[in-house]
């Protein structure tokens, strides 16, 4: 490191917000590992790299993203402290609440809320609700997804039905986007999908969503939040939260938010997820 670069780095260190906070992790240069799940369109490598670089610069700390095939694996990695934070669904958050801390909640259409959509093939005009799907094939996204699994289970429970008997066959696609695909190609006659993802897909890949039709919309639930493992230092949680919340304040952050089809992040409140917790109890999932 040349002398000039060293001076610049020192100045940046002194001027950086929270420079006097006990930033042990930062000083150690340990990377912040964030797990990602398909609660958003996580298959855009270029975008992920840009976001990761953004977070890294803003945090002043290396950031690593980790993606896995299911929510369960991410939850497991958080529990084993292999990950520091994760963007998870509300359902695993309330289910493993004791091991997690809420970092931030995305704002979608100005609110930290989203819905679960029940979709059917566009051609299947006879399907106008969940009740019409009796004996049909149904696609879930992930067993730990609120919008893609818990909510339809809850609805069936309300109707007094057992999911295993109601549908002739069900399967998991492990991402919301693939639920849309499965319904679009006619593999499943119904599917439960994250409303935010369906809306976003309708913007960027309309040819896919055109083949499907939203049959039912759930009430609004708390948007899948960013959480941290309980053992992560508060200072690090706060730093991450601050960086996320300030994304709407600069052009680059706004551009990234635009690609996510989100308006920003908010600190969020545990109460947003109460309804998910209630549904989980009705369906019978342990908390």
């Amino acid at each position, binding site marked *: 490191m040349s002398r000039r670069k060293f001076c610049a780095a020192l100045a940046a260190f002194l001027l950086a917000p929270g420079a006097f906070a006990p930033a042990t992790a930062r000083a150690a240069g340990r990377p912040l590992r964030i797990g990602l799940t398909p609660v958003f369109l996580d298959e855009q490598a270029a975008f992920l790299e840009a976001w990761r670089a953004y977070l890294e610069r803003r945090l002043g700390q290396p950031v690593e993203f980790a993606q896995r095939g299911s929510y369960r694996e991410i939850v497991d990695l958080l529990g084993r402290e292999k990950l520091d934070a994760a963007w998870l669904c509300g359902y695993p958050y309330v289910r493993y609440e004791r091991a997690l801390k809420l970092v931030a909640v995305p704002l979608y259409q100005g609110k930290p809320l989203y819905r679960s959509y029940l979709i059917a093939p566009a051609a299947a005009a006879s399907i106008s609700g969940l009740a019409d799907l009796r004996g049909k*094939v149904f696609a879930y996204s992930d067993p730990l997804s609120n919008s893609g699994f818990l909510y339809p289970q809850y609805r069936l429970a309300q109707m007094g039905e057992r999911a295993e008997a109601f549908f002739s066959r069900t*399967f998991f696609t492990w991402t919301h986007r693939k639920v849309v695909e499965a319904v679009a190609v006619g593999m499943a006659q119904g599917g439960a999908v994250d409303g935010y993802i369906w809306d976003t897909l309708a913007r960027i890949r309309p040819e896919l969503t055109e083949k499907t039709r939203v049959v039912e919309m759930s009430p609004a639930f708390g948007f899948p939040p960013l959480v941290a493992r309980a053992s992560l230092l508060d200072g690090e949680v706060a730093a991450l939260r601050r960086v996320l919340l300030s994304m709407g304040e600069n052009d680059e952050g706004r551009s990234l938010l635009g690609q996510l089809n989100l308006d920003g992040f908010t600190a969020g409140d545990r109460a947003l997820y109460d309804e998910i917790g209630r549904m989980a109890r009705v369906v019978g999932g342990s908390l």
Partner: protein
Amino acid sequence: MNQFLRDLSLRYKIPLRVFVLASASALLVTISILFRVYDETKNDLLLHADSMGRVLANTLVGPMTHDDVWRAYEIVNSPFQAGSPGQTQGAEVILVLDRKGRIFVSTRPAEYPMLGDFSRLDPEFAAAGATMPAKGGEGPTVIEPLASGRLFVTVPILSEGAPLGTLVMSYSKRMFLPRFVGIAQRAALMMALALAVLLPVAWYWGHRMAKPLVSLAACMDQIGPRVPEHLHCDLYDSQDEIGRAGASFKRMLKELKEKESLEKQMMVTERLAAVGRLTAGIAHEINNPLGGMLNAINTYKRHGQDDPRTLKTLALLERGLAQIKETVAALLVESKVEPHPLSRRDIEDVRTLAAPEAAKRGVALKWEDDVTDALPLPSTQVRQILLNLLLNAIHAAGKRVECQIYRDSRSLTLAVWNDGEHIAEENLSYLFEPFSRLSRNGHGLGLWVTYQTVRQLGGGIVVESEPDDTRFTVTLTLQDAS
């Protein structure tokens, strides 16, 4: 149509046949190529299906064990996303059947939905299902139901040897079609190009081949009941069959012409002989009473009265009868035995006799006489013949008369040529008749007498006459000196 084809000129027939032959061979080659392409395409497809089937079957073990339908779908659907849809090796549809023969997943879920009964979906699937091998097979199997537009390749999905299900790949034979059409189009193009080159060549070649035949046929067509005088035949000169036919034809034509002229000559000769016989008969019949009448006049003159008027009448009668006698004598050409053989001197005498007449008429007389020694021919008759011909020639000539007398070992030839007006062809055969209307002076008996004399001497006389070129040739056979 058949008749038309049969009657068509070889000029067109040969190129047409070449065209048909070339087209037929091109077609046969194309068909054999297409068959080969079909086989190769099928083999390629089966090879491809075999390897792809094994890979897919292996990969499907996990998702099938875990009942992960979507993963299975992504696996079987991956060939469809990777390859272009026009690829001939792409399967039409891939199905995964579970152990009970129900559809676990298919690449066309809308048509072949999950849990559907494979063999009830499609009559062709049913046929394939009926022939599907018993469970436990290891490698891919090809099923080609009869009268079906599809090929099926089935691969068992085995986990540690235990069957989990069956992978069925259905291929449409229609996929071969674009490749087929492409090859057929290319073949048609090549064929058209080859024909475009071949056809002018065939046309030219056919024309060349047919030309000698056509000209031979055209030449033969000209031969009617008679051989035309100026038959022009441009025949092909070679040793092949056509050339030989042409040569034979020419020979035949020549013989035909000779025969014709011989016949003509014979007719003339016979007619003249008949006329001669008739004339001789009449002359004899006239001669007898004539001799009597002349005797009677003589007797009267000697012993009768000397009445001047009677005498005058008698003299008149006598002169008339004498003239008749003369004429009859001229008609009655009789060779008298001549003891005196022909010598050069006899011939030169004729020249001496004719020369004044030629001089009088301003005609140049060219004389060639090859005779040196005496010949066994009656001198009087030969002299008479020669004189007759010479005087005729001098009278007919414009400016020149040529006379050639020559001999070989067997004959003497007298040839007299003049440059006067020629004798029309149609008149030639009447030339030697008595009282010929062609004679411009005299009785018209000169040539008659000449002809009769030549015949009596056993010779021949030939007349060739063309404008400014008339030749009389007399050939006399030399009698044995002994």
